Each structure stands twice: as C-alpha cells, then as structure tokens.
C-alpha cells in the first residue's frame, strides 16, 4: 500500500535511471581522477615552482595526493617548509 502511494505521489515515479545516472556520475569522478598519475606529477612540479618563489621547501618530503571519501574527492598536499625567504618578510613589513 505504502509503495503504491509513494509511487503515486513521490520519487518512486522517477524510475531507476535517476539512480543509474547518479551512481555513474560518482564512479566517474573517481575513475577520471585516478586515470593520470602523470597529471598529478605535472601539478606537483608546477606547485613546487610557485611555492618556491615564496619559501624554501623540503622537496623530499613534498607530497600531493588525491584522497577519496565516500562521495567526495580532495587534493591533499603536505609541504614541509625549510625556510621562509627573507625577501618575502621584507615586502610584508
């Protein structure tokens, strides 16, 4: 009875294609980002260039990774700093 009512009035009506599309969308977010370690490496190099303008980074400990949750992705970077550049602190003052 409840099923009938909810089909009559509610979301059941929209059919299983909505579920298919949503599941596909999520799985592709994961798939597409995991396809290219090459892209991650390029990103890492460019980040290093930009950050190095302002501070000295410990390159060996520099890490950039994609971390996935249940329904989200995050770009997580760990950037150990060796030393701040003097030029930067001077412009700040």
């Amino acid at each position, binding site marked *: 009875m409840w099923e009938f009512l909810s089909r009559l009035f509610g979301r059941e*009506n929209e059919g299983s*294609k909505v579920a298919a*599309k949503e*599941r*596909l*969308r999520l799985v592709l977010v994961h798939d597409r980002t995991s396809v290219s370690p090459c892209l991650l490496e390029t990103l890492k190099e460019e980040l290093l260039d930009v950050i190095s303008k302002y501070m000295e980074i410990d390159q060996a400990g520099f890490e950039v990774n994609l971390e996935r949750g249940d329904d989200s992705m995050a770009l997580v970077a760990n950037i150990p700093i060796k030393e701040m550049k003097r030029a930067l602190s001077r412009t700040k003052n």
Partner: protein
Amino acid sequence: MPGKALVITSGKGGVGKTTTTANLGLGLALRGHKVALVDADTGLRNLDVVMGLENRIVYDLVDVIEGNCRLAQALIRDKRTRNLVLLPTAQSKEKDAVKPEQMKELVKQLKDEFDYVLIDSPAGIEHGFRNAVAGADEAIIVTTPEVAAVRDADRIIGLLEASGLYDPGLIINRVRPDMVRRGDMMDITDIIDILAIPLLGVVPDDEGIIVSTNRGEPVVLNGRCRSGEAFNNIVRRLEGEEVPFLDMRGDGILERLKRLVGLR
C-alpha cells in the same frame, strides 16, 4: 587518396561492436564505397560468423603478418557485394602474435586500396585493444544504456585521447524505448551529458538483430527492421549527410494514435 581507418571499440564486451562493424561495413559497401573489415580480436574471432563468411577462410591476419601469404590472399570477398572484403584473424593464436607497428603497416596498406577500413576491436584495454587502435584515424565507441557499459566507454575515451584519437563518435546500442519512457533506462541526453562526445547513432534493441546474426545476414539488408534503419542512418552520417535521429519515444499509445490520424 588513401581511405580512412575507423576502429570500433567499447571497453566492455557484449555491447555490439562486432554487429556494428558488420552492419556499417556492409552498409557503406552497398552505397558504393570500397570497404575492408578487419577482425582485430585474435583468438576470439567472430566477425566472420556475423558476416556469414566463416566457411571461406583460408588465410588470416596473423598469416599475413608472419609472411605465410600475401595480404590479397587473406582477403575474403563478401557474397553480397564486390565492394566488401573481410580480413579475418587467427582463432588459434594469442593476441600478442601481432604488434601495434605491424598492425599500423597492415592498415596503411589496406587504406591504399579501400575507401574505408573498419577495425573490430576486442573488448578490454590490453594488447588487443592497442593493436586495434594502432592504425586507426578515427574511433567509434559503442555503448549500451547501462552503468557498466557507459563507465567503460568513459575509460576508453581517455585511452583513445592518450593515443591521439580525439572526439570519437558514439553509438548507443540496444535502447529500449518502452523502458526509457518509464524512466527505467538512461536516455540519449543522459549519456551524452556524461560522456561529452558527439553522437553518431542510436540503435534500438531489436530481435531482428538476433535473427540476422543466426543467419549470418547483417540487419542493414533488412530495410523494415528498426535497427537496420538505424545502422543505415549511421552509414549516411559517416558519409557526411545530416540525418535526424530515430525518435526513441515514439512508440507510446498517444504517439501511435497521433501517427494514425496524421498529426505527425
């Protein structure tokens, strides 16, 4: 002017690559183009049976590559039109009997003689796929409106780009208008939204395909079949003609009534 080589691929198995290759090949040939079909699924060849040419095989692709025969000796002429030949592959060899560079050279030779070279790719993304893609100028991706098939298609699009094949044409196979209407099957817009590549054709699910495969007679030969009509439309689009897509929602009672009274 050399011809054009198209690879027909999908990632996932069982979505209709071989049927598509057979129908597009025969369709193009019937419209006057010289066409060569290449079965790149070494070890699991099927294009020969779908075309109904399995009894005529003497030499195969691996024989050509190993130098056991000349290319021309391995080409099987179709029984329906002189414009079409099939290059079958070996059934008893492994996929790595062929290297991508060899495949490239072979396809190049075929392009000198034929307007279209259609390469039927195996499922998967390994050696056989790389061989199939090696000599291709353009790609056609076949998918069905299912999560697994569309996901694999997306992966293949990425891999094709990595090999320099951009904007493959998409064929959505086995669409069931009744299920689309109920909202129980992803429709064309849903899939195009996700994959973001140009649509080349939509083929309805059709018992006629099974009947025609049973007989070894591709369904393009049957003008009254909806799927045959869909494949013929794709052939014309490949020639550059603008052909409207079949209306996949057009089988409802209301639509049928409208057609009956001449409203559409």
